[in-house]
C-alpha cells in the first residue's frame, strides 16, 4: 500500500463463500483451488471485504467502518491499514496506482 487514495481491488483468482457470518476465501493457483490455503474473515473482516468488492478506497472504508462500528477514525484507520496490508501480503487484493488527473 503506497497511497491511501489508491483503489483497492480483489485478486482475480479467488473463490469466496459466506458461511455463518464468516467469509471463506480459497486462492486458485494454476486453475486449481488450494484448500490448504483457505482464509477465513470474521464479521468485521467480511464487512471490509464486501466494501472492497465495490471498488472502494481506503478513506471510504474507514468512514464506513466508523459508521458501522463504535470506533474512532484514528483507530479504524490504523486497523484497516494493517488489515489491508495483510490481505495484500496474502495475495488476496491489490492496489491500483493512482490515475493521473
Amino acid at each position, binding site marked *: 500500500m503506497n497511497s491511501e487514495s489508491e483503489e483497492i481491488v480483489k485478486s482475480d483468482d479467488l473463490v469466496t463463500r459466506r458461511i455463518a457470518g464468516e467469509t471463506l476465501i480459497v486462492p486458485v493457483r494454476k486453475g486449481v483451488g488450494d484448500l*490448504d490455503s483457505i482464509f*477465513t474473515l470474521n464479521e468485521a473482516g467480511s464487512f471490509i471485504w464486501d466494501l472492497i468488492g465495490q471498488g472502494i478506497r481506503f478513506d471510504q472504508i474507514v468512514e464506513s467502518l466508523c459508521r458501522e462500528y463504535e470506533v474512532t477514525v484514528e483507530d479504524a484507520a490504523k486497523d484497516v491499514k494493517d488489515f489491508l496490508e495483510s490481505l495484500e501480503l496474502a495475495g488476496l487484493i491489490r492496489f491500483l496506482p493512482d490515475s493521473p488527473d
Partner: protein
Amino acid sequence: MKSNPWRSSWFSGFASQPNVLLGDLLSGARTAPLPVRLTARGISMAPFIRDGDVITLRPCRDCPPRTGDVVAFVHPVSEQLLIHRVLAMNGCSFMTQGDNAPVNDGMIPEERVLGRVVAVERNGTRVRFGLGVERFLIVVLVRSKLLHLLLSRLHECA
C-alpha cells in the same frame, strides 16, 4: 452501532465446514468446476496415500469414477469427508473402502461423491503407485481383506 470486534483478529480460525467449500469448487456451484488440492489426513488409505500427502481432486463431471479409483465423498451417515477407493459400482452407487480400513463404507450414492483423486504428492514429489492399472489388484486385495491383514502384520513386525 456495533462495538469494534476486529481488534483480536480480522482472520478467524477455520471453524466452518470445508466440505461445503470442497463441494462448491468441485461441483461448480459458484464458479466453473475446479480441481482442488488439499492435504490428506489419516491412515485409512496407507500406504498409497499417507497422512500429510497433498492430493489433487478432479470434478466427477470431468472424469466419472470407476472401480479402483480413489474418490472424495461425504459419508451419508457420519457426514465426514472421506477419501477412499471404489471397490464396486451398482447403478448410481459406489461401494468404497479405505485400503487400510478393515470394513467398507457401505454404498455411497453418486451425488455424495465430490471428486476423483488424480494426483498424490509426498514431500513435493509426485507419487503414482496406487492410481494406475495396479489399482485393480489393490481392489482385489482390499476386498479379500488381504491388504489390511498384510499391513497389520507389517505393522506388528515393525
